[in-house]
């Protein structure tokens, strides 16, 4: 299997061979898929050194000159050049793609400096910014093509490990790409039973699927898992369609619970005047000073599958 970031860069490399306006800027970060690029397309590769601010400003200048720049950095450091993204790219009207590698706890056990757990909140605030968390190989490929075909200011959150991709991508939704969300799993309940929608994204879809399974088994309610692989903008029509028959809404995110994923969904629900509440699960703290694998840290910090399921069942049954 291939990690999502290598799927993305591999596809981009193929496209860059035919499109010389594609320029890859690395902030001193490598990837197996990048070695070939550096050898074969040196004129479309810029080693910016560990200097995120200049890398983004240069990318803005390239975009203003008609290039399609991709700035590849550890997701955590996108906060360091927030002003450059906001000012030179968003305000300046210069579309670039930021490839954030290793989102949320993806670099565990590197420690909290390497683990951006609020990046959705701060990136979401930038006007015109699109945010993507592709969860499958297919979506990652589709997204790479889209960024070349239709340049915009984008923050693409890429997983760096092979175990983070959903192996099977299934959807009956032909508009899944346009909508930015799709039904990723359906866990049937008893006939006429209440309906629950679970919203999640990226790496946490693994866990969210298991949560859905437990809830469906114990309550016999019908549970639907919805993958928000595009977190901004949220398609209100698609969201409305996905929640219209639901009695309970649940969100599960690998972020601190201020202004991030669930914040985005709540804003959208409010705009739609849908007031069903949202049972939210996220990290207990933005800064986790503990050792462990990503999964161990998730278990210990508010995102254990069994705990989420049992809290959900309690709330739903007592409602």
């Amino acid at each position, binding site marked *: 299997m291939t990690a999502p970031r290598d799927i993305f860069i591999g596809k981009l490399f193929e496209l860059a061979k035919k499109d010389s306006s594609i320029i890859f800027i690395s902030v001193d970060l490598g990837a197996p898929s990048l070695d070939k690029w550096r050898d074969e397309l040196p004129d479309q590769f810029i080693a910016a050194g560990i*200097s995120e*601010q200049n890398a983004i400003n240069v*990318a803005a200048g*390239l975009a203003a000159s008609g290039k399609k720049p991709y700035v590849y950095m550890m997701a955590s450091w996108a906060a360091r050049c927030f002003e450059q993204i906001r000012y030179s790219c968003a305000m300046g009207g210069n579309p670039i793609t930021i490839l954030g590698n290793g989102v949320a706890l993806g670099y565990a056990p590197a420690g909290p400096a390497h683990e951006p757990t609020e990046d959705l909140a701060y990136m979401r605030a930038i006007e015109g910014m699109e945010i993507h968390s592709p969860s499958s190989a297919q979506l990652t490929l589709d997204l790479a093509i889209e960024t070349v075909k239709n340049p915009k200011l984008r923050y693409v959150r890429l997983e760096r490990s092979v175990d983070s991709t959903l192996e099977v991508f299934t959807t009956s939704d032909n508009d899944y790409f346009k909508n930015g969300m799709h039904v990723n799993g359906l866990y049937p309940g008893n006939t006429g039973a209440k309906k629950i929608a679970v919203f999640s994204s990226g790496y946490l879809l693994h866990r969210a699927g298991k949560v859905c399974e437990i809830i469906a088994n114990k309550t016999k309610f019908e549970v639907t898992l919805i993958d928000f692989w595009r977190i901004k903008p949220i398609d209100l029509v698609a969201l409305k369609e996905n929640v219209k028959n639901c009695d309970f809404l649940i969100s599960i995110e690998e972020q601190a619970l201020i202004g991030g994923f669930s914040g985005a969904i709540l804003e959208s629900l409010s705009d739609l005047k849908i007031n069903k509440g949202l049972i939210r699960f996220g990290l207990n703290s933005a800064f986790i000073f503990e050792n462990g694998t990503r999964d161990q840290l998730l278990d210990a910090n508010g995102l254990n599958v069994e705990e989420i399921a049992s809290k959900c069942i309690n709330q739903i049954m007592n409602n």
Partner: protein
Amino acid sequence: MDLGKKANQFRSELIKFKTSTGSGHLASSLSIVDVLISIYLDSSTYFDHKKDVLVFGKAHGGPALYPILAELGYFKAEELDRYCLPGGILRMHPDRSIPGCTYVGGSLGNGIGFAAGLAWAERAKQTIVILGDAELYEGSVWESLMFIAHWKLNNLLIIVDRNGLGILGPTEELLRLEPLSQKFESFGFDVLELNGHDFRELREAMTEPPKNPTVIIAKTVKAKGVDFMENRAEYHTIIPRETSVIASMLEGLK
């Protein structure tokens, strides 16, 4: 063209539109007037405003460009009278919504990296970036300097408006910038130090585009042309509004 006469005319227009609203940074604009005239209006300098690009790093001094752009026909001179007023197109910091301006204005330390991107993408095009000396405190400037020197972007000329003052006082007392020439040289730049109010020196430095990555340190006087404001840090944001004072400022230019 009598550049000295033009300089007086533009300083006078700057003083008029700045004092009419009291908005912006008159002193920072006055220090860069002559450099901009040399770039835009001296036919012996290489910059061609129709195809080349000027990026303002120290955009708070950017309004110095407005009388020049009006002269070149980018917008009507009447716009100067509506500076910072509702319905007008000219703002405190020049930005891409204003004809003849690029980029956005107002955030220090970023124009140079943006200009580096332009210069990297289009080597046949000439780009000039104007930096304030106090802007050099931004770390991002030095990231960009490394980048420009490494890629030998000699189609990008860096001009530092070395008026010697930050908001709080002289740079050398606040936080030392010198030896500035050696700093740029050690980063791989050719450095030219000159009098930023001397059209002959400016012309000699800009007759041809640079052959190596180059920094011009233009030694200037903050608030140049208004005696009582010159070289005084407290006038960074203070703009006189009294009619008699404005009259004497304009009289002093003659």
